[in-house]
């Protein structure tokens, strides 16, 4: 039995690696957030549009896939900003590496574009379609797509699910970071993405039925998020020295304050309460709740991204 390691010194002082790994900053946090949000948007809008309806869906629902593409492009922009060798970005598309979530992600992103674009065009009302189609030689494609509407929605849904899983797994597969080395991380990010997607839609004008559906879905997602976070922390706390370290970071360490205040209280608990009040009392809806959910989603990524980088094996004996 060794006495406790008391002094550890290393001569290594590589930038961004020492004393604490800091290779990824706000760019990746925003990218992960937008990736999750877009996944949520695609999934929820596909589901809401799945059944044919009597009246035209709300404008935001029609536009959702296209808005998703804009947000996704923003996310890819921040991802690009993070690349240390930007000129080599094309390299992502000269290879497919099945073991690399980053590679999966790169390909999922480009696959989502045509699917979501078509899906988005279909969802547009006839007048918008008419305006656009005058300029674009897409009549034939669109007519084809119209016939395949369900398939396309299905594909959009699948793309959303793929994107959501990928953004969740990206960090989760980097098992060298104790904080990310948990099976809960993927589902957590996916759920948070769904919640963010719902919250995003709730910022806009929707018909009553859709709104209620979204609020209920969001409540469910937030509740699941809460459960996942609890199981993550409990899992860490009961997983030996490594897990203890990860648990400490969230329970009594550098990241405790931001995690609990921004993510758990502001991003999950308060919105959950507000939404349940909304549902029960049929209150006029305000933008506060979805805004909190969105901020919470961003904070979740930012905090776990930072805490994870601060949780290398070097901290273990």
């Amino acid at each position, binding site marked *: 039995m060794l006495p406790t390691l*008391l002094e550890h010194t290393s001569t290594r*002082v590589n930038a961004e690696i020492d004393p604490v790994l800091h290779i990824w900053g706000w760019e990746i946090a925003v990218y992960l957030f937008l990736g999750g949000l877009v996944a949520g948007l695609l999934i929820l809008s596909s589901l809401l549009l799945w059944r044919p309806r009597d009246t035209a869906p709300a404008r935001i629902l029609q536009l959702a896939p296209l808005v998703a593409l804009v947000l996704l492009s923003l996310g890819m922009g921040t991802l690009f900003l993070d690349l240390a060798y930007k000129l080599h970005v094309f390299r992502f598309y000269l290879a497919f590496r099945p*073991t690399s979530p980053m590679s999966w992600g790169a390909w999922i992103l480009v696959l989502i574009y045509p699917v979501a674009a078509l899906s988005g065009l279909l969802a547009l009302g006839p007048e918008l379609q008419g305006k656009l189609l005058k300029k674009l030689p897409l009549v034939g494609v669109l007519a084809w797509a119209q016939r395949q509407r369900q398939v396309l929605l299905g594909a959009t849904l699948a793309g959303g699910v793929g994107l959501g899983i990928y953004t969740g797994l990206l960090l989760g*597969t980097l*098992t060298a970071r104790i904080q990310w080395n948990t099976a809960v991380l993927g589902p957590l990010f996916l759920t948070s993405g769904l919640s963010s997607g719902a919250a995003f839609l709730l910022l806009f004008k929707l018909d009553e039925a859709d709104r209620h559906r979204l609020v209920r879905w969001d409540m469910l997602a937030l509740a699941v998020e809460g459960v996942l976070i609890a199981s993550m922390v409990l899992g860490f706390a009961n997983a030996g020295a490594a897990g203890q370290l990860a648990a400490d970071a969230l329970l009594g360490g550098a990241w405790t304050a931001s995690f609990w205040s921004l993510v758990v209280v502001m991003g999950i608990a308060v919105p959950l309460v507000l939404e349940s009040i909304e549902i029960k009392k049929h209150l006029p809806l305000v933008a506060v709740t979805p805004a909190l959910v969105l901020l919470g989603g961003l904070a979740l990524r930012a905090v776990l991204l930072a805490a994870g980088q601060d949780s290398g094996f070097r901290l273990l004996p």
Partner: protein
Amino acid sequence: MQRRDFIKITGTTALGVAVATSLGLPKSGQAESDPGTDGDHTVATFCELCFWKCGVLAHVKDGKVTKIVGNPMHPLSNGALCPRGTGGTGLLYDPDRLKKPMIRVGERGAQKFKEVEWPEALDFVANKLKEIATKHGPEAVALFVHGFGGSFFRHLLNAYGSDNVGQPSHAQCRGAREVGFQLTFGAPLGSPEVIDLENSRAIALIGSHLGENMHNTQVQEFAKAIECGAQLVVVDPRFSTAAGKARYWLPIKPGTDIALLLAWIHVMLGEGLYDREYIAKYAIGLEQLRAHVADKTPEWASLETGLDPAQIVDSIRLLAGARPAALLHPGRHTAWYGDDTQRARAMAIVNALLGNYGRRGGFYFPTKLGVPKYAGVPEFAHTFKRAPDRPKGKVFPFGDEGLAHGLRDATIPGTADYDLKAWIVYGTNLVQALPEPKKTLEAIQHLELLVAIDVLPAEIVGYADVVLPEATYLERWDDVVVTPYKSQYIAVRQPAVAPLYDSKPGWWIAKELANRLGLGAYFPWNDASELVKARLEAGKFDVAAVLKNGVALGPGKPVFLEDGAPASFATPSKKIELFSQQLADAGLDPLPNYTPPEEPPRGQFRLLMGRTPTHTFGRTTNNRFLSEIYSENELWLNAQVARDMGLDDGAQVRLTNQDGVKSTPLRLKATQRIRPDCVFMVHGYGHTAPGLRFAKGRGVDDTALVSRSKIDPVFGGTGMNVNFVAIERA
């Protein structure tokens, strides 16, 4: 199954892509990983990053030295190098190098110079030297020197008429050990020390932090000994690197080593652990020694040293159990407490009792190759006046070398037998090398001439009247080096590249000055390459081979008694003198006595200094390549004490010594690795010279805090671990 594998498998299945990661690996990564640092040729020379003189191979590509590796043929490097040697390019390409000769224009020390051409600078120095010889006599000029290239300047000074040469490596470093061992065994230990570490089966270190003190060959042998199972005893107030490998670490109270040594001798004699036959044959004074240590029991020593008496006994039993292949390492930097020669004597006596002098695993009788002198260098006709390196009327009976601090003091008028008026300072940063730096600066103000010959603008250069930029060791020839060692070899230094800027080799500077002083006859060769080649030819060496290999090996000779080396003890009795009549005759203790050290007052700590493997004093701290690793020193303080004082590891602290000298801030290393009554820092930091643009302001200059020293009565050395510091948050 790892989760990664799981993803790998699912990913593969999902896409139906068969990826065989382990099949068909590329042949090698040669092309893609080759950084292209191999030279188009290599030059075999020897290193000058410290003074050990390891053989190196400099890789040269397109006229630039790309990297430096060990010369496998050289017996001091055996192909391996210490970090400093590896970092020679950092010196060669240091952007802060002295680039042109300069003459002072402002106040002395105001760092205002004008750049001049070489003839003007050399004329200036020669004219001044002539004037001083006329006014005060040539003996008013002193040379301070450190490093192999200094030999040309020593020769110049001798030709000029003075032998006032001071090397801080003597009185401020290994002098006490040399004198102590010479008194006992009849010979100093030299450099490399004549110790056979690699064959030792048990090694004791007292204050020597081998491994942090990175003398290449010695560390190689040290590791080899450990590899072969040698046991270590490390006596050090600090848990040094070596202590981390020791069977026994004795965290001794600083200044009490002699008490431990006397107790060790007590145990050795009491338990009959010493080599009776060897002592009977080669030594005198055993009975006096026995009487002397009769009451020096481990229990007594325990009270003085703070060590466990059982540990005192066990450690010497361990050491003696392996004799004669047991070595109490003599150390190197031994200028600690002012009783240093006596401590060295006690260490020499322990070694004698181990019967290890002239024995494998102990000390060897060195051998060397002969290289004839250059024919036609005239002998000096004049005799030299005795160096004024001690206060008027003061006598230090032993020690053959000049006292650097004494020469400094002799520059303050009226201190010594006569006043010094000029200094030639070669590669020696006296401001950081000598204790009581205030005195150094005061002495400088009394000079009529201060010439600095250096590669970098160290502090002392800023006070010079004339600055002569020397070429680095990678750009110059030097004389042949002949080293007394356990094997026979000679080595040459030759340039890997031409001198950068307007720097010149030392030999050229000395020769040009000699010409101007009318002493050209003493430098009859045209250049140092001719000097080297002529000497090698005269010695019947294959010159081309020596230049190619950088080294020539001799057939060797027995260096151990068991191999037939003759026992040779050049003491007055021709024996190992356990009892020293010489010391008795000089009115000094013929056997080492222990005097308790002065205690630091409450709230103060004894300041100890040491080395880091990546640096040679302050000479390399501006080397950007080397300093990437340890760019500033830190203050080691016992972690418990630090906690009690409310100081966290990493806090910035400031030191104030007993004379009120305040340090600049430095980082605190709160550590379990040191006793609570002392603090430790690595020497050579805290530069103030503006020209050292990298090193300036990094860490703390320990010498500034050494505002007092304790003079060793045997030879006049300066014990420097006698300063106490208080610590406060900066």
